[in-house]
């Protein structure tokens, strides 16, 4: 469904004529694939590039470099005249349930917009289809004449989901779809997303910072740090046997939520994410990595397969694993 190779996205920072050209290295040389019907999870902290990846896959931002195919359309770049067809196949749900719905439009128009644009559905037919969509996402059909501000966060997120599935897409980008919701509402929305995936045969890119939520949703998971993919594996593998020191640090932070696991194979890290304008040479995590050595500054570690379906970008992962499990 998705093939990404060597994706690069840089944002120019200053456009003044004589200023030094500086760029934000949002995404650097990231590759992955997503198979039809599966969920690919993307985790990382703010500024790691996971949201930018989502925007690239939605063709909301043009690529700086690399090759990208989504749902049978090449996005490097998208052939002119095919954007409408592409938009029919690829939809999205974003984090903020308040910003995602135009406050001046009724639910009928908010949820029905893609149907109107793509298939020219209007009037009574649109009303009927929107009501059916509301039923699918578990909202009362009378909601059709209400305005977004009359709904709570969880219900708005259901509206956003109804809108996204209206054109029967093949692939959906879900960018932090539950992190703005209350804890008791999250499970409802996560269950709904899983049910829809099963019923409609959807493929998901699921972006989140919460490792437990990502594990629940995903078949495979990629961990990003400062624009690079540092580890990529089946969800079960990644959580059973994290290898990259950054993944271990994330797991340590997340385990607080869980039954105490002892933290045997986790790592506590200090410091903060460096600026993406001037990222560290070599391995970008080295400035915070307790195991960093000279080689880490000199050489960018490649994402290499260490076991079936488990790839990692760290020069010393074998030594670290030996040290931590000793």
């Amino acid at each position: 469904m998705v093939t990404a190779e060597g994706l690069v996205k840089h944002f120019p920072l200053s456009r003044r004529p004589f200023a030094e050209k500086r760029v934000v290295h949002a995404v650097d040389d990231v590759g992955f694939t997503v198979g039809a019907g599966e969920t690919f999870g993307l985790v990382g902290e703010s500024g790691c590039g996971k949201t930018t990846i989502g925007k690239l896959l939605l063709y909301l931002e043009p690529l700086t470099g690399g090759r990208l195919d989504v749902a049978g359309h090449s996005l490097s770049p998208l052939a002119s005249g095919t954007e409408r067809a592409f938009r029919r196949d690829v939809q999205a749900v974003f984090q903020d349930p308040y910003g995602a719905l135009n406050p001046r439009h009724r639910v009928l128009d908010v949820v029905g917009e893609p149907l109107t644009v793509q298939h020219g559905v209007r009037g009574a037919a649109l009303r009927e289809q929107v009501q059916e969509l509301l039923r699918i996402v578990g909202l009362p059909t009378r909601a059709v004449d209400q305005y977004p501000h009359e709904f709570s966060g969880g219900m708005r997120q259901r509206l956003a989901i109804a809108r996204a599935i209206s054109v029967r897409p093949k692939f959906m980008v879900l960018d932090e779809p539950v992190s703005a919701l209350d804890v008791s509402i999250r499970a409802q929305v996560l269950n709904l997303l899983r049910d829809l995936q099963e019923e409609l045969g959807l493929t998901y890119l699921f972006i989140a910072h919460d490792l437990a939520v990502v594990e629940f949703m995903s078949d495979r998971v990629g961990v990003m740090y400062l624009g690079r993919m540092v580890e990529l594996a089946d969800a079960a593998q990644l959580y059973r046997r994290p290898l990259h020191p950054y993944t271990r640090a994330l797991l340590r932070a997340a385990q607080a939520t869980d039954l105490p696991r002892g933290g045997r194979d986790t790592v506590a890290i200090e410091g903060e994410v460096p600026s993406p304008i001037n990222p560290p040479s070599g391995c970008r995590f080295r400035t915070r990595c307790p195991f960093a050595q000279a080689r880490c500054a000199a050489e960018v570690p490649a994402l290499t397969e260490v076991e079936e379906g488990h790839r990692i970008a760290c020069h010393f992962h074998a030594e670290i694993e030996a040290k931590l499990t000793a």
Partner: protein
Amino acid sequence: MSGASAFARAWTGRLREGMRGAPVLATGLVALFVLAAVFAPWIVPHDPAEQNFLASLAPPFWEAEGSISNLLGGDNLGRDILSRIIYGARLSLIISLFAIALAGTVGVLLGLIAGYVGGAIDSLIMRIVDAFLAMPFILMALGFVAALGPSVTNIIIVMGITNWARYARLVRGEVLSVKSRDYVALARVAGQPRWRIGIKHILPNVTNSIIVLATLDLGRVIILESSLSFLGLGVQPPDISWGLMLSDGRAYTTVAWWLTVMPGLAILLAVLSLNIFGDWLRDRLDPRQARD
């Protein structure tokens, strides 16, 4: 019958809800101002051009020599000041509305383009805006009127040309903020062409700000028109304008203060109430205080 009254009740209810917290005095004065302008020919006590020799320099009715016939007195040619103020309101309102419509249309269009398209076009438009905002109004108006000649149409054009920049700047800023909302990105994901996103999603979400600026501008434009007319560059006799009345009365300030004070007071009250009303409207339409 009862259906009609229920309908009326629903509307008064809605009106009451919409006007909640409105400043009573200012709103009343604005309404009075607009009504006077609209119905001027039917409510004036005298023909504003009629010269009544007996009423020449007659003081307002509360003064010793005043009379009920000329409530606010008469001017040097014996014309009724109240009637002239009412007709002045009419012309002021017409000129202001057209001027704002012109400035608003040009400004909103250019602001939308600048904010939405961005890049070099944005830079170009905004530099022109800066240049217009930096130029002193009276100087600019002088130049234009000198070139075009004074007439009501030309005043409207001059004020349109000199005021559009404020709208462009406001709209551009609003567009930039609305453009970054998720629903705009999602409209693209839905497949909406960019120009339709501009019309369906961006423009409706900046209209409130435009309405508020236009209301506040109304007061400003009335003052500008009065200034121009006072300087002889605006409304020309026999048309009536408050600024022109001020100018005409100037020579009589010592003997008949009401010739200048009355139109001056009209300007003051109209502008003040418009500004207070505009401030209230801004708070009312602020989306952060959405209908509760």
